[in-house]
């Protein structure tokens, strides 16, 4: 398989103050520095090497401040690496000539659905991206129509986003990215501000895009049920990748995940507790159906 995104030893350090950064850079170069300084200027990303294949559905987990959002912003060249490099379809984000191409290839969705909509009409908002790319008006129309169909929002093309639900707004935002014909969608906690229904709407849309249109999806989330549906889960902590694998592999490490301040899907948790009590449920359980199966096999 071809790779979509590849990061090599990505390091990112926030620099509010230029002088302090230079100290930090030497510090990361190996010179020992004081503890307090280290704590003041932590590495938001500390040697992250991640590869995402084309057509993959990857979920990145991690508690607040683990560097997952910072990583997402690197994919889109909204942030540039302090050290190391990240490539999107082989294009280096550090090179200015690539920026717009990268942003078109790897579209990005943010947490707050209200704060990423420019227009007061759904259709015009979806057209914003392709308009920026300088696509011909007729082609834009086709793209917008297809994008709205893909997220199931064609009926709302003339609606005002203010009157839509959170899940619907987030689907419009996804359509706005789709209209730019990307290869990959990066979502930075798109479900964090939504109710359960909105969450499942967004998740269903993403899975459909991934399965039917072979869209590469990098999904950052707090919700373990969402992570359970991915092809691969990457767990980050303190700017480092600490775990990586299929949901089954990752969620079998219940104790490690808890130590990182993360949960596991409810059924995995239940299986874990049952095992602790001496009831031997078989296998790595992620869903209710699997739980039911495992429990029935007990008798």
């Amino acid at each position, binding site marked *: 398989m071809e790779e979509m995104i590849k990061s090599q030893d990505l390091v990112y350090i926030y620099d509010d103050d230029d002088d302090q950064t230079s100290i930090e850079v030497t510090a990361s170069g190996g010179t020992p520095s004081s503890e307090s300084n280290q704590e003041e200027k932590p590495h938001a990303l500390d040697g992250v090497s991640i590869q995402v294949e084309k057509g993959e559905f990857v979920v990145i987990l991690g508690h607040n401040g683990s560097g997952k959002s910072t990583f997402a912003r690197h994919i*889109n060249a*909204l942030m540039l690496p302090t050290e190391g490099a990240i490539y999107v379809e082989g294009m280096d984000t550090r090179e200015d000539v690539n920026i*717009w191409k990268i*942003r*078109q290839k790897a*579209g*990005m969705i*943010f947490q*707050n659905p*209200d*704060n*990423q*909509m*420019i*227009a*007061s*009409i759904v*259709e*015009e908002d979806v*057209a*914003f*991206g*392709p*308009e*920026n*790319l*300088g*696509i*011909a*008006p007729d082609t*834009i*129309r086709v793209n*917008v129509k297809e994008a709205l169909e893909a997220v199931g929002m064609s009926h709302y093309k*003339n*609606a*005002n986003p*203010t009157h839509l639900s959170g899940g619907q707004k987030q689907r419009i935002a996804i359509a*706005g*990215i789709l209209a*730019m014909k990307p290869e990959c969608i990066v979502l930075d906690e798109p479900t964090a501000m939504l109710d359960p229904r909105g969450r499942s709407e967004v998740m269903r849309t993403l899975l459909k895009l991934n399965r039917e249109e072979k869209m590469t999806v990098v999904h950052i989330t707090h919700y373990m049920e969402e992570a359970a549906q991915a092809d691969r889960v990457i767990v980050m902590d303190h700017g480092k990748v600490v775990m990586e694998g299929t949901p089954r592999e990752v969620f079998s490490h219940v104790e490690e995940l808890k130590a990182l301040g993360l949960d596991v899907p409810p059924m995995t948790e239940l299986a874990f507790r049952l095992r602790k009590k001496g009831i031997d449920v078989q296998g790595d359980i992620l869903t209710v159906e699997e739980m039911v199966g495992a429990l029935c096999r007990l008798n």
Partner: protein
Amino acid sequence: MLRDITIGQYYDVDSPVHRLDPRTKVLGTVIFIVGLFLVKSFLGFAAAGICLLLLIRCSNIPLKFIVRGQKSIAMLLLFTVVLNMFMVKGDVLVRIWFLKITYQGLYTALFMGMRLIMLVIGCSMMTLTTTPLQLTDGLEKLLRPLKKIKVPVHDIAMMMSIALRFIPILMEETDKIMKAQSARGADFESGSLLRRAKSLIPVLVPLFISAFRRADELATAMEARCYRGDEGRTKMKELKYRTGDYVAMVLLLLFLLAMIFSRYLPGVRELAGTVLTLLGVR
């Protein structure tokens, strides 16, 4: 209550007015405003009012909806009318203590009131029938010549459309913050004017902080969607003048002429009189 304000809100129906080119509507609004300031007689106002009613009729927007939208300017209107009524000097009609209502004052107050109402309705007709993006597109195109003298026309248009998009959101947010503060015992309704103004500070501060945060996030999101100013940017909906626009232009011109005529009618009559007498003398 805060969401009732109709300025800057698009009313989604189909009508000949909605279908007009935004440039026509912007020009039309300007002409209407100029017309309103030209008018100096009740007859003129009546004519302008009838034109406005006809326009509303054509736009398929319920009159009730528009009237409800005017609630927000009621205070301003009352203030203007009352101020004019008492402040203008002239022949005294009624005297209450030291306050005098003069004939001229009443006259001016009525004129000002009517002018203000029609002004606001006229402007909201533009925003009700035009989507904000169309509107800013129209303005951008109309003001394009200014680009030659380095006026950032596109940037201004973009700022306007974003402002319009965020007005309802910030309104809602103000509402929420006020409720949250009230729940913690803040009092916005009682006390002197100064006290009430002061009590708004705990509302304004979080509102501003949130607005800045939103602006920051929006800027990032726009950048992520390849926004880089107007270089190489295309439009999905390109502006084109159609037959309806030409008809509207002609009607607007007629309206403007009528308004000019109504203002200078006495003058015209006088002129005609002088000419006639002159002719008669000859």
